[in-house]
């Protein structure tokens, strides 16, 4: 019994410490962002664009694929259920609203935490192990400014963009399966799609994706920079970056949905 509670205490202690370190990193990044307009060379556009290409442009194809698949599955499942009420017509509405509000941001975030978050953690972890991070700080360069800031900003730029791509591809996927596979009327489908969609659906989805971007970038960079030991440490950091990011994304998703649709006035 004592062991059991001890374990719980220990785990929650570690979690608290982790949260503390994450918010420390967050404050440092925001501090640098506020200083950026007054201090030259804080944000280097060259590094930023390099990261945008590595993370964003190279993830375009997989986001399209995953977004379209999610839209297709959603249309298939929805029309099967809606048929029972004779409401097949509303498949388009259901797909568009659920993709923009929920699935687009979520799918884009999860794919990128696996594709880019893991990469960040492994990259920074290897740099830490090979003393490159120490070399930076001996040169008088702040590792957070030099390594974390461009990656953080790039993530914040690309995740909402890729979320829009996922949203569009989800709707396209739903459209294709409904018209070609389930022989619905394409004009009616498109009309219903845009009837149901309101601006709030889209911008709440984008706000969410921004929050997810902050979480993934911070967690992955933090895991990478806190690597101790050799290859084993890098492996552990990479796994933990992805798992922690996904868990935090889901928790954040739940919280932000509750706040945006139930707490704040419509």
């Amino acid at each position, binding site marked *: 019994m004592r062991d059991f509670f001890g374990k719980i205490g220990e785990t929650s202690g570690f979690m608290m410490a982790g949260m503390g370190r994450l918010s420390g990193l967050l404050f440092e990044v925001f501090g640098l962002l506020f200083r950026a307009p007054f201090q030259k060379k804080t944000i280097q556009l060259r590094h930023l664009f390099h990261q945008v290409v590595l993370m964003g442009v190279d993830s375009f194809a997989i986001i399209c694929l995953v977004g379209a698949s999610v839209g297709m599955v959603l249309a298939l499942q929805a029309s099967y259920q809606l048929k029972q009420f004779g409401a097949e017509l509303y498949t388009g509405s259901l797909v568009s609203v659920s993709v923009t509000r929920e699935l687009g941001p979520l799918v884009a975030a999860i794919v990128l935490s696996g594709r880019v978050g893991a990469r960040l953690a492994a990259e920074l972890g290897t*740099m830490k192990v*090979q003393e*490159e991070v*120490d*070399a930076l700080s*001996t040169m*008088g*360069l702040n590792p957070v400014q030099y390594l974390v800031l461009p990656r953080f900003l790039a993530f914040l730029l690309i995740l909402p963009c890729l979320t829009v791509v996922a949203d569009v591809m989800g709707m396209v996927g739903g459209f294709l399966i409904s018209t070609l596979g389930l022989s619905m009327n394409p004009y009616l489908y498109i009309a219903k799609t845009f009837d149901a969609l309101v601006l709030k659906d889209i911008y709440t989805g984008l706000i969410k994706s921004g929050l997810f971007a902050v979480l993934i970038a911070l967690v992955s960079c933090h895991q990478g920079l806190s690597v101790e030991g050799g290859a084993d440490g890098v492996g552990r950091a990479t796994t933990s970056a992805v798992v922690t990011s996904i868990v935090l994304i889901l928790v954040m998703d739940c919280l932000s949905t509750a706040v945006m649709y139930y707490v704040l006035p419509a």
Partner: protein
Amino acid sequence: MQEKSIISVRNLVKRFGNRVVLEGITLEIPEGKISVIMGGSGCGKSTFLRHLIGLYQPDEGEILIDGQNIVGLAERPMNAVKRKFGMLFQGAALFNSLTVAENVALPIREHTDLSDEIIKIIVKVKLELVGLTGFENFMPHQISGGMKKRVALARAIALDPKIVFYDEPGAGLDPITASMIDQLILDLSRKLKITSVVVSHEMKSAFRIADQMIVLHRGKVLEVGTGPQIQNTKNPYIRQFINGEPEGAIPFIQTSDAYLKGLLQN
């Protein structure tokens, strides 16, 4: 020796948990000379070096670099101190995503407002100093270990520092390449009047380059002197260390009594 000292360390103490790693180290590093810090594995010499370059904070004591105490110094003044020294890491610690020229240019680009043309010339001069003309556009993984160290050395002296720290400069290199690195250290010290602090356990290279030798043992300074003084020392530990014998002041095989005692103590 009545030279002006550029680094003064006073009563430096560092503990990791209950283990005392540095037990009150006090020493002076003379300006413009080569000082070699020696000692067996685990004697605290790497830890000591990491204090000098500001990567670790000591628990007690002070470190004066060029007259300024760096213990507890805030980030910005510390960065000003860091511009006075360069560091050659054991594994070279080059940035793998940058070319040789970009690696050397990095500290210049970040700390000065020089134009790209001038930086290019400085990089060329620095690479020539270490005998690597024409390797500007190679990536670190395309060159040998010895070359990597020389690039790292070019990077360390990019901003014309007063002091250069070397962590095991000959480690992992063949004897010829290692002696080339030794020659470079000598050249830099004699021609550019750079103060060199070398951490090493390779006797031959140490005696060849050292103006002053400092022997550390179990976190304490055992002896300080010139090469010949150390060579003729009566200290049994240093004698054993120089001659590289398994038996002596530090027993390799413990007596069964001492072994049992050691086991039971914990």
